């Protein structure tokens, strides 16, 4: 599709929850250092698909994947892949802000600490860098050791982004990261996504069509477990090829 290399790729991917066929033969490639948005009505499989990239579905009883997911050309569903190592490479931000019930500082350095990094100067530097990157530093620098639960929802979500950035992943998965936030916080998160793509490959699931239009380079439209259409966001929003895509983005169903 372009000269850039594909950071992430799905090849003939099928996924099942027990007997339910949740994803049907998905083939897609996502460019490095670009934002790809997944859109589609509820239950279309977009979140399920997003979660195959860091194998977050592994813990669901009866969940099964066939086909391949490639990260830098390597199949992450191979037996010899360690999921905890994979997730250090592929970070995730969730729909509802989910900081740990610890201090702001402890939240940001959590990922480093579980990797065994104990040196205070290293942790402090990483915390500052990540919080600055997540545009939260100025708001929290005087209360780093206060509980993260005392922050507003929007601040908590940026803290979760900072926490994900602290372990320097190359991919950032975002599952409706702004759906639980007010418009101002949403704008801040969107702005952040735009800035982060200079360094990270970002995949974002969103229900908000305008949001997909604002932040993404490419958009994939999912419907009933199928990838209906995948194209440059601009192209997709101005001249969708499939009738279902057109109906969805013009708001005729969803």
């Amino acid at each position, binding site marked *: 599709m372009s000269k850039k290399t594909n950071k992430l790729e799905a090849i003939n991917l099928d996924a099942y929850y027990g007997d339910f066929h949740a994803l049907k033969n998905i083939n897609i490639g996502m460019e490095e250092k670009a934002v790809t948005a997944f859109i589609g009505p509820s239950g279309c499989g977009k979140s399920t698909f997003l979660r195959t990239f*860091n194998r*977050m579905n592994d*813990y669901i*009883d009866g969940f099964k994947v066939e086909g391949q997911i490639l990260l830098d050309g390597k199949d992450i569903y191979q037996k010899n892949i360690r*999921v*905890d*190592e*994979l*997730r*250090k490479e592929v*970070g*995730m931000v*969730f729909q*509802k802000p*989910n*900081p*740990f*019930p610890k201090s702001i500082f402890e939240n940001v350095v*959590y*990922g480093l600490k*579980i*990797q065994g990094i104990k040196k205070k100067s290293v942790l402090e530097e990483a915390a500052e860098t990540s919080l600055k990157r997540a545009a939260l530093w100025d708001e929290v620098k005087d209360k780093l050791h206060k509980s993260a*639960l005392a922050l507003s929802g929007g601040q908590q979500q940026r803290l*979760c982004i900072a*926490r*994900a950035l602290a*372990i320097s992943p190359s991919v950032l998965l975002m599952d409706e990261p702004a759906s639980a936030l007010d418009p101002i916080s949403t704008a801040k998160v969107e702005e952040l996504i735009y800035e982060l793509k200079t360094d990270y490959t970002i995949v974002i699931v969103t229900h908000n069509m305008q949001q997909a239009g604002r932040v993404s380079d490419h958009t994939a439209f999912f419907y009933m477990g199928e990838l209906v259409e995948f194209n440059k966001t601009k192209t997709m929003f101005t001249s969708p090829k499939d009738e279902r895509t057109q109906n969805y983005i013009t708001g005729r169903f969803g």
Partner: protein
Amino acid sequence: MRVSEKVIEGLLWLAAVITILITAGIIWVLLSESISFFRVVSLAEFLTEKEWTPLFADKKFGIMPLVAGTLLTTGVAIAVALPIGLTIAVYLNEYAHATLKQVVKPLLEVLATIPTVVYGFFALTVVTPFLQQFIPSLAGFNALSAGIVMGIMIIPMISSLSEDAISSVPRSLREAAYGMGSTRLQTSFGVMVPAASSGIIVSVILAISRAVGETMIVAVAAGQQPRLTLNPLVPIETITTYIVQVSLGDVPQGSLEYKTIFAAGITLFVFTFALNNLSFWIKKKYQEKYD
């Protein structure tokens, strides 16, 4: 219709009131008998005297040897039950398959239904001889075996309540931990257990309260020698054992010896009452923290 409703309402009210009255009655008996005990023996002597020999010619009324015996067996029990119970809770929650959990949890709770006198004889006739192979100085009656077996008995209490506490931690927190590249072990002990700590503490306090009040196991296996010691290898006596000993003996009713059981009883009551209230308070204070 109207009348039968009234009758049912009245019966329900009566059931509630009778329960309250019985509780109040027990506390009244405990209080009045121990007040007449404390008219003879001062509270200071009761709390500071180092020997408890009300049945001997040279009577001494220091409750501390009995308290020490109780704390010793309880301490051993918790030292056994907390690590095992918590490990089981974490295993069932993070590692076990859902169907395995459905089988194991009720099976564990069977442990709590075994009569305590059976546990007592198990401690005396199996655990003590077994431990004596490794610890030759272990007495035939000792706090160690009784405590260990009591610990086995309260494992399901801790594992079951802790498992409930861990599984009520929001799913989003577990996902956050996994999403950061945590292993299962790091997720369990670094995130889930701390987040469920209030519930786990409550389970431990209730287990302590159960161990403090446990009678048969210690009466059978721990001996009946009040001794102010923290050495688990020698015979001791707990508060509950003393009460049994005197209740079954031929101490004349109304005598000072007889009244000692109420003094011991109220000490026990203060312990369990305080522990239960502490657990209630912790539960209330922290339970909605993560909602």
